């Protein structure tokens, strides 16, 4: 059994909270630069210039890239030979979020109850998913997920007969309805299969993938490429002002499902796609 003290978890989550909100990963920055080159609309090109300038200012001055510093979404892959000492795993993660959001001057966007709607004041609780995996290390994947893109997302229990064409139609419909709300160019996370709760988790996990890497399954990689082209033909463009770059990537994750079902979830991420992972 390998022991990991909660202080190490707190410190890592605290640092991740600040890092992801101020420094956009190179894969996303590169994709935005490429988008600026290929965007055909002049206002779209100009807007992409503003977005890149914003990312530069945030990195240089350690400012939040976006004022919506999000809900903290955390996937933990915990080796089965790890023993957490000094306290509770989830409370340690929340303490890291609490410290990071306070010390990083990040916005506190979490309400204690969806009906009563009182701000908890420290951006906790985080949304935490824990998987137990072989090994003796602890992987923490963290995202700061904004409300605008999350509100633009959708899930549908489709019929198996809807097939690939049905799935594509649903994705295009969701993206088209969202228009400018999720701050395009967006990243589309598509979860197919599993069941009612699993498809959205697959879609969320798809957003953590290095931008533009394809699913290893050839039929899903093909679906990613086709959907990206089709989304970009919707004409939404950067910030919805019209243009040819609406999405930077479509990432698909799939899982086995019931003979009667075709669960499909579309989780949209904004161009400020903030996520990182660390391994302890």
């Amino acid at each position, binding site marked *: 059994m390998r022991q990991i003290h909660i202080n190490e978890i707190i410190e890592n989550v605290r640092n991740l909270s600040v890092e992801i909100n101020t420094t956009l990963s190179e894969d996303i920055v590169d994709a935005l630069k490429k988008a600026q080159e290929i965007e055909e609309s002049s206002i779209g090109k100009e807007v992409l210039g503003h*977005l890149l300038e914003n990312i530069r200012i945030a990195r240089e001055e350690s400012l939040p890239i976006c004022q919506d510093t999000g809900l903290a979404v955390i996937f933990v892959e915990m080796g089965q030979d790890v023993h957490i000492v000094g306290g509770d795993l989830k409370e340690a993660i929340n303490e890291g979020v609490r410290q990071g959001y306070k010390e990083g001057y990040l916005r506190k966007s979490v309400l204690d109850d969806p009906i009563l709607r009182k701000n908890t004041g420290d951006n906790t609780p985080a949304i935490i998913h824990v998987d137990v995996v072989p090994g003796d290390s602890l992987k923490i994947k963290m995202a700061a997920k904004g409300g605008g893109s999350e509100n633009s997302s959708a899930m549908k229990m489709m019929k198996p007969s809807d097939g690939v064409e049905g799935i594509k139609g649903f994705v295009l419909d969701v993206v088209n309805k969202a228009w400018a709300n999720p701050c395009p160019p967006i990243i589309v996370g598509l979860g197919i299969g599993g069941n009612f709760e699993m498809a959205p988790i697959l879609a969320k996990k798809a957003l953590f993938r290095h931008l533009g890497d394809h699913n290893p399954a050839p039929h899903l990689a093909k679906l990613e490429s086709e959907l990206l082209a089709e989304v970009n033909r919707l004409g939404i463009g950067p910030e919805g002002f019209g243009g040819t770059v609406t999405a930077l990537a479509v990432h698909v994750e799939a899982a086995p499902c019931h003979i009667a079902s075709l669960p499909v979830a579309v989780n949209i991420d*904004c161009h400020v796609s903030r996520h990182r992972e660390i391994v302890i």
Partner: protein
Amino acid sequence: MKHLKTPLNGKEIANLKTGEQISLSGVIYTARDAAHRRMIEAVEKGEALPIDIRGQVIYYVGPTPAKPGQVIGSAGPTTSSRMDAYTPRLLEAGLKGMIGKGKRSPEVKEAIKKHRAVYFAAAGGAGALLSKRIKKAEIVAYEDLGPEAIYRFEVKDFPVVVVNDIYGNDLYEEAEKQV
């Protein structure tokens, strides 16, 4: 790029056309979901609003906290459609401009035409860049709402795009038609 000073007069608003890029300077007020809800509750009870919105521009934003030495934290626009349920009442009460992102409801667009107001979009996600254009910030109402409090901003060269003008045009719909 056209430069305009707030508050905007009727003639300036009438001259604005969908798709125009505008550099705004002057005073604007912030309000998002919770502040809108409170303002509408006040209007319904016949109480005075905490700010005089007549002729003013409201920016839909919930900024991050300012670091020491900063005027305000990052401050980009939030999704405007969440304010749609409240907006026609505020336009009726004299509000003249709004800054946010995303499409408005048919009711809001109709009210924009009727009350000769304007809806601008700012670049969503560009909170750090936009914060540099905010020269002064003070909370003027609903401080208990934290990031949702109403701030009075003094902005200089704040970049926006006209989405809905008084003639019923809509930038997003125009983009849609081009496909």
